[in-house]
């Protein structure tokens, strides 16, 4: 901005300070007098005592009295400052950055902010031209040089294209280049931003001109509680598309974001909406995966209705499977006829079972039940299981393993231990099944940093009379992904397995206890270590310890556990325009146009998705595809009555800012100004100091 600083730096900082809740400030500063009042009212009243001799304290007395007075003054000052700061904190101070640059010296006869909607819904035919025309029309009544104008465009969030200026060349230039984007609509936030801009000027007349299709869905973020500043007028210029107003859109879709490679088909469903006055019949909707047409269905869709189209598709290609659901029809807004998704398929998971007690007898072998449950037949299992005796296993055996199961493994070679830790570090999972081959001390020293807890001793279940007995899993964390399949009725009873002995564990404060035995001791624990997950069932899969292998829930439990350890589905593949895509360090993001958007730096970053389509992340771990779609709300052309918006936001003549909504007229500060946090921190420190000095001060 061309406006010079009007104050010296220090004073300018103070002058730039304003408060959101000024009433609190006034009341609070008055409250700061309270400590002084209390001090005066409760001052020590001198008691007079005739004493046998004052020889014992005559010398030290003056020093003590002087110190006491000083401490009292410090205490009083601290209390007053704390009260005042508390008032300041509640008043929510903020730095008027814009005003600091353009302080009250900004003089203009009239000021106007043009708020132009460039959301996805404005892409309908003819709207963009109308938008420019309306904006230019709004500029015409302003005289360059004496009046001020600003241009704000908005979709999901407002952008100040040109701040308040009396020279309109920039605004005109920007207006020429206005293009609707693919973002959502947030009308209220844009008007709040415009109101803030108008607070920079002392113009006699201030107004906001909103040029938009005034989508009803774009007003849904307004929750009330604030109004425009006094003397700010709002004009809404609603523009409607010309010609064909019909619109069909894919407004929702359900698809598997990530899965293990399987031969069975998976469901892909999409909800199609018809935002027009005419019924549509034989409407073709197609699914294509990996650029190939997979299926096409024809649906009948009545006017104003929605319908779900379901496809079943076998995702048999490992890695990303970018797919598109498309409506093959002409309408006013073809951009929302397409929905992109990515079903990420993970190839067979390599699982290594380290066997701590190999034996020819499967009832004694520590890994027999586990290996058999994971891969009954090598061909059909999603798990690529290899069982290796722990005593002879090497680090190479763990190459590429997504999960490692330590079946009754008490000790391993240091190199192998390092390799196991490496599995965790690269995001894999460990499952500990400690049994009788395990010694607590050796286990704790070797696996203490990898296991979710430490082992203490083997506990034998007992009956109430102290006789040998059994215990069961009494508490299970059903919100955990491993157990969510058992949550529904008749989907497996986790309390059926009987446990005769188990390891008592300790140091599990940092772990999540997923299941507990009847006596409350942890049975299954999980802890996130590095990028991976470490889990422990505190007993082996061994019939001498429990009857877990005989129970129906054993196989689904083990499959769920290993799936969870090997691939966790936190990685999201579907986003909307305007959301931020995570770009890890040393990765690059390529947008749908093929341009590199995410710099491959040495820090993780977030890159906003600005248009729909597939964004490909490339880096050390291979490729990952994000599917980005427009906000489905943009498809709905229903408009809001402009007068309703004006009535909701514009103040009545003479209506002033009151304490109740004083904060509301300064929107956006919540996120921007954290100064009150620091003030509160200062208050806290002061009160701590007060406590310290108070304790040392000689009081009643």
């Amino acid at each position, binding site marked *: 901005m061309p406006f010079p600083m009007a104050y010296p730096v220090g004073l300018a900082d103070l002058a730039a300070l304003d408060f959101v809740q000024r009433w609190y400030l006034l009341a609070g500063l008055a409250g700061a007098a309270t400590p002084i009042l209390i001090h005066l009212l409760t001052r*020590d*009243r*001198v*008691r*007079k*005592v*005739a*004493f*046998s*001799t*004052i*020889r*014992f*304290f*005559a010398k*030290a*007395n003056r020093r*003590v*009295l002087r*110190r*006491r007075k000083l401490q009292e003054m410090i205490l009083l000052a601290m209390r007053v400052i704390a009260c005042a700061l508390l008032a300041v904190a509640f008043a929510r101070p903020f730095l008027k950055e814009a005003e600091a640059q353009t302080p009250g010296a900004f003089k203009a006869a009239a000021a106007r902010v043009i708020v132009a909607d460039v959301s996805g819904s404005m892409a309908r035919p003819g709207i963009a031209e109308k938008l420019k025309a309306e904006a230019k029309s709004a500029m015409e009544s302003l005289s360059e040089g004496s009046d001020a104008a600003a241009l704000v465009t908005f979709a999901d969030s407002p952008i100040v294209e040109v701040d308040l200026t009396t020279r309109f060349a920039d605004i005109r230039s920007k207006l020429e280049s206005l293009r609707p984007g693919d973002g959502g609509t947030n009308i209220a936030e844009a008007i709040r931003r415009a109101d803030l801009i108008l607070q920079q000027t002392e113009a006699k007349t201030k107004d906001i001109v909103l040029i938009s299709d005034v989508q009803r869905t774009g007003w849904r973020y307004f929750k009330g509680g604030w109004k425009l500043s006094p003397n700010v007028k709002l004009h809404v210029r609603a523009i409607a598309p010309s010609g064909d107003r019909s619109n069909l859109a894919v407004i929702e879709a359900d698809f598997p974001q990530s899965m293990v490679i399987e031969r069975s088909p998976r469901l892909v469903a999409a909800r199609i909406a018809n935002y027009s006055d005419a019924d549509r019949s034989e409407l073709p909707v197609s699914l294509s995966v990996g650029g190939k047409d997979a299926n096409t269905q024809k649906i009948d869709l009545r006017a104003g209705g929605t319908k779900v189209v379901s496809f079943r598709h076998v995702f048999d290609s490992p890695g990303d499977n970018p797919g598109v659901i498309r409506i093959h029809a002409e309408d006013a807004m073809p951009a929302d006829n397409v929905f992109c998704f990515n079903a990420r398929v993970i190839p067979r998971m390599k699982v290594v079972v380290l066997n701590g007690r190999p034996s020819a007898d499967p009832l004694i072998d520590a890994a027999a039940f586990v290996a058999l449950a994971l891969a009954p037949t090598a061909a059909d299992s999603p798990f690529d299981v290899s069982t290796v005796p722990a005593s002879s296993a090497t680090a190479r055996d763990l190459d590429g393993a997504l999960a490692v199961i330590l079946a009754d493994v008490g000790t391993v070679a240091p190199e192998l231990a390092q390799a196991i830790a490496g599995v965790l570090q690269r995001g894999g999972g460990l499952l500990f099944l400690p049994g009788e081959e395990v010694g607590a001390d050796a286990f704790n020293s070797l696996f203490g940093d990898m296991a979710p807890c430490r082992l203490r001793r083997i506990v034998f279940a007992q009956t109430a009379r102290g006789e040998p007995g059994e215990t069961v899993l009494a508490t299970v964390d059903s919100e955990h992904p491993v157990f969510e399949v058992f949550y529904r009725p008749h989907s497996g009873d986790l309390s059926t397995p009987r446990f005769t002995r188990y390891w008592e564990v300790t140091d599990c404060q940092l772990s999540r206890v997923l299941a507990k035995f009847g006596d409350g001791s942890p049975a299954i624990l999980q802890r996130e270590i590095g990028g991976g997950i470490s889990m422990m069932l505190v007993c082996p899969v061994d019939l001498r310890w429990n009857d877990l292998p005989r129970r129906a829930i054993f196989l689904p439990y083990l499959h769920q556990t290993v799936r969870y350890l090997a691939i966790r589905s936190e990685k999201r593949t579907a986003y909307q325009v305007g959301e931020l895509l995570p770009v890890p360090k040393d990765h690059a993001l390529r947008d749908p146009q093929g341009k590199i958007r995410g710099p491959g730096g040495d820090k993780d970053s977030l890159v906003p998705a600005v248009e729909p389509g597939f964004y490909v992340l490339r880096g050390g771990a291979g490729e990952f595809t994000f599917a980005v779609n427009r906000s489905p709300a943009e498809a709905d052309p229903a408009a809001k009555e402009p007068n309703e918006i004006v009535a909701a936001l514009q103040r009545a003549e003479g209506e002033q800012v009151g304490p109740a909504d004083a904060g509301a007229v300064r929107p956006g500060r919540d996120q921007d100004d954290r100064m009150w946090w620091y003030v509160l921190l200062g208050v806290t420190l002061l009160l701590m100091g007060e406590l310290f000095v108070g304790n040392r001060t*000689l*009081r*009643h």
Partner: protein
Amino acid sequence: MASTGCLDFEVLARIDSMQLLAKVVVEGFILGLHRSPYRGFSVEFAEYRQYSPGDEVKHVDWKVFGKTDRYYLKQFEEETNLACNIILDASGSMGYRSKEDGLSKLKYGCYMAACLAYLTMRQRDATGLMVFDKDVRSVLPSRLRQSHLKHILSTLDNLQPGGETNIAGPLHSLAESLRRRGLVIIISDLIDDPSAVMSALQHFRFLGHDVIVFHVMDNAELTFPFNSLTEFTDLETNEKAMVSPEGMRPVYMEELRRFLESYEKGCAGVKASYKLFDTTRPLEIALSEYLYRRSKMV
């Protein structure tokens, strides 16, 4: 409630007559001693023994011989004829009492002196009373007559605190004035320079007196229980000091500890007996101390 062991001080305070008070305390005390090591201390005890060859003929009681026609010897317990001088401090600081209805140090000292005088006279010991503040205020030389006890008790009855303390000066004067060696009991709060007081005690010891120091202090002087900003006025000098007691307490207690320690060690150094009393302690302790020291002397 403060107690003398037999009677509460509140009860004693209602006894107008110092003699009656002393009698109540001492008789009660002696009653309590009937199984104590002091049994049979009466000096009037005498016995007869049959004459045996070698005995002095002059000790034969001829009256008994006249009545019984047998030779008996008359044996006497030797009378101690001890001179006991009670020296009481009646300076202004002795007038201090922490409670309105409590005993001042001087009153407590008077009770103690009265009881001691009553007991010593009952023991057939000659008893004197000297009262001082910055000078010797009154002197009643040691006498054995019963009427003398009345003088002592009367003096104690009419005693009022006043004047600054100068313990050493009067004690030196009194030491010079005592002709017979005996027991010297000093009752004072000892608020003076300890080295000067010790010098005076040394003076008594040098002249062959046995010295007992009863150091009387008020409980408030020992605990400094004040807790709000207080203006203290020195009872002797009228000096004033504004004090924040909570902050001053550690300083006061340390100074007091040094003060008491200097007297305790100093008395041990001059082989004087030292007892610290606060005004709530039983008087019998003072009587016991007197009897103990007396038993060492006879």
